[in-house]
């Protein structure tokens, strides 16, 4: 298997930093707030993709860590009297510590059950957050003004600072994912994603690798949750632990954009934000369209939009190497070994059994 070099993704990241970092000098506050939202969404989507696309761990409970981070940030500042910067930094170890027992419980369940189990845990955390004394109960509580002011005394200054902060965190998240995916562990992860038993035979411990990913993503999601409270200015159980915002939309973003590729969540999130701008008035229709698009994408091209160039390239290549007559080809693919029809993929996707790598990550 050819090891892809991290040079291209790192160059793209450097380019993005070069473009986005000086942007506050050129654009207005509205644009900056808009971009800050986008950065947080991309970062959360990257972390979901890290688990599902790279690690094969589907969680429907990642909103738990966003909410927990928000509540921890409030608790550290309001109840422990910590400086907001320290409080924000502390949400990282807090998230990591929280995700350890969560993973210990969930790792007893396999893929699909893991997903629903994570949902149960998220539900428990949300209900528990509403019962914590000193956090405003079910209706929540606003951040204290002096905490918000620590990030900039005046509003324009604050918007600028939060913009930079969220972009810095997004860059670190992406850098982390690039480095992990091109490290020894990252290759172990790909091996595991393709074939868990084979990976185990080669000395990869799937549970340890998954635990590492889960803890890393829990830590960073907590930080993003704290960051997001600075945008929302208040914590409350249903808002901070929003299933729709931080899990449903995020899953759709990654699935449509491209699972298992770093560029996928970026494409998905940009599309999502643009569509939201124009279609969110439609309410339920918007959700139905997103859901249908995600299902269609899973069936047509599980690699999402990011996999389309490769798909077209493959198709062109296939056309060049003289194709078998159409009917004959169809007969070959009509029924696979299990006698299923239709579920036979139109183009042979590399599978674990063929020993080929999954489609390129970029």
């Amino acid at each position, binding site marked *: 298997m050819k090891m892809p070099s991290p040079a291209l993704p790192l160059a793209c990241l450097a380019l993005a930093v070069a473009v986005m970092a000086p942007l506050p000098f050129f654009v207005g506050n509205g644009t900056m707030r808009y971009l800050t939202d986008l950065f947080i969404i991309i970062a959360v989507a990257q972390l979901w993709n890290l688990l*599902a696309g790279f690690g*094969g761990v*589907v969680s*429907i409970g990642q909103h738990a860590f966003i909410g927990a981070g928000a509540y921890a940030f409030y608790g550290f500042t309001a109840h422990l009297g910590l400086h907001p910067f320290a409080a924000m930094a502390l949400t990282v170890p807090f998230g990591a510590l929280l995700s350890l027992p969560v993973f210990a*419980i969930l790792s*007893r*369940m396999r*893929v*699909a*059950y893991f*997903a*629903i*189990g994570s*949902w*149960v*845990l998220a*539900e*428990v955390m949300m*209900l*528990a957050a*509403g*019962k914590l004394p000193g956090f405003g109960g*079910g209706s929540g509580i606003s951040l204290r003004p002096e905490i918000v002011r620590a990030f900039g005394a005046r509003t324009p200054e604050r918007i600028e600072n939060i913009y930079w902060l969220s972009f810095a965190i997004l860059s670190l998240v992406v850098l982390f994912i690039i480095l992990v995916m091109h490290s020894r562990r990252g290759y172990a992860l790909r091996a595991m994603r393709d074939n868990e038993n084979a990976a185990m035979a080669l000395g990869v411990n799937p549970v340890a690798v998954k635990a590492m990913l889960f803890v890393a993503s829990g830590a960073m999601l907590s930080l993003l949750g704290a960051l997001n409270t600075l945008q929302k200015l208040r914590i409350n159980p249903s808002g901070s632990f929003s*299933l729709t915002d931080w899990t*449903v939309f995020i*899953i*759709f973003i990654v*699935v449509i954009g491209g*699972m298992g590729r770093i560029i996928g969540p970026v494409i998905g999130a940009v599309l999502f934000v643009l569509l939201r701008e124009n279609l969110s008035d439609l*309410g*339920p*229709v918007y*959700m*139905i369209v*997103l*859901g*249908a698009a*995600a*299902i269609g994408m*899973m*069936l047509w091209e*599980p690699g999402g939009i990011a996999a389309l160039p490769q798909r077209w390239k493959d198709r062109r290549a296939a056309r060049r190497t003289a194709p078998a007559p159409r009917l004959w080809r169809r007969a070959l693919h009509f029924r696979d*070994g*299990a*006698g*299923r*029809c*239709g*579920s036979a*993929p139109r183009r042979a996707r590399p*599978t674990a059994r063929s020993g080929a790598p999954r489609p390129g990550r970029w």
Partner: protein
Amino acid sequence: MELLNTLVQGVLLGGLFALYALGLSLLFGVMRIVNIAHGDLIVAFAYAGLMVTEFLGIPLPAAAPAILLLAAGAGWLLQRGLFEFVPRRDPLIPLLVAFGVSIILQNLMLMGFGADPQKLSLGALEQASVEILPELHVGVFSLVVFALAVALIGGLQLMIYRTAFGRALRAVSDSEENAAMLGLDTRAVFRKAFAIVMVTVAIAALLMAVRGNFDPASGPTRLLTAFEAIVIGGLGSMWGTLAGGIILGVAQMAGAQIDASWQVLAGHLVFLVLLVLRPRGLFPKHGG
């Protein structure tokens, strides 16, 4: 007496929870699909019941057979029209497809019926109660639900272990490839299985709708309850699922004694504790 009352109410509620879980368990057993849209399908058929009784004015007992038939057709169609095209080699894909179905269903129901809670009425039977012990009154309807749950589990067990179709189900569940090699039409088995699953969904839906309020967003709670009952009982064991449902029902009723807001949380907490203590469930099908 208070304690005994809570216990009895909880056990009877557990019957309803087991009914939620049957379809989910069957679908996973046969197709290895965890249908995240399960709870939303339950709510959808509750709305189907509402339409028939409220808008067409047909009483529920008379309409029930038609609704169950409709459910079987819907199940067949869902498999034929969607899940048949979902590759199952990677469990991620069916999971995410079902997730999409769940969100679509929730929002379709929101568009069609609005967010207000609804309920089906069954007239006098709903309020009727019997005194099984001195000072211990039990609703007749709850007893009927529990009896139906037991009957349905028994019936499904008979079907799976005593009929030709049950043999086909078990063969496909063991190994789809081998079953196909032996000449079994696995596609037809899957379609029929999905139809049967949807009949159990519709039964659970109608009973749920009579018992309490529902709204377009109440699907996920049903899904989580069903899932917890299955995991507590042990995967693949239907009587285990009933036991799991009963444990959850008792936990919820006990939680509700403290405070209404503790009802759901208590159920979840008992589930988590049992998951840590008995990760394979109370009645694991395969030893070890």
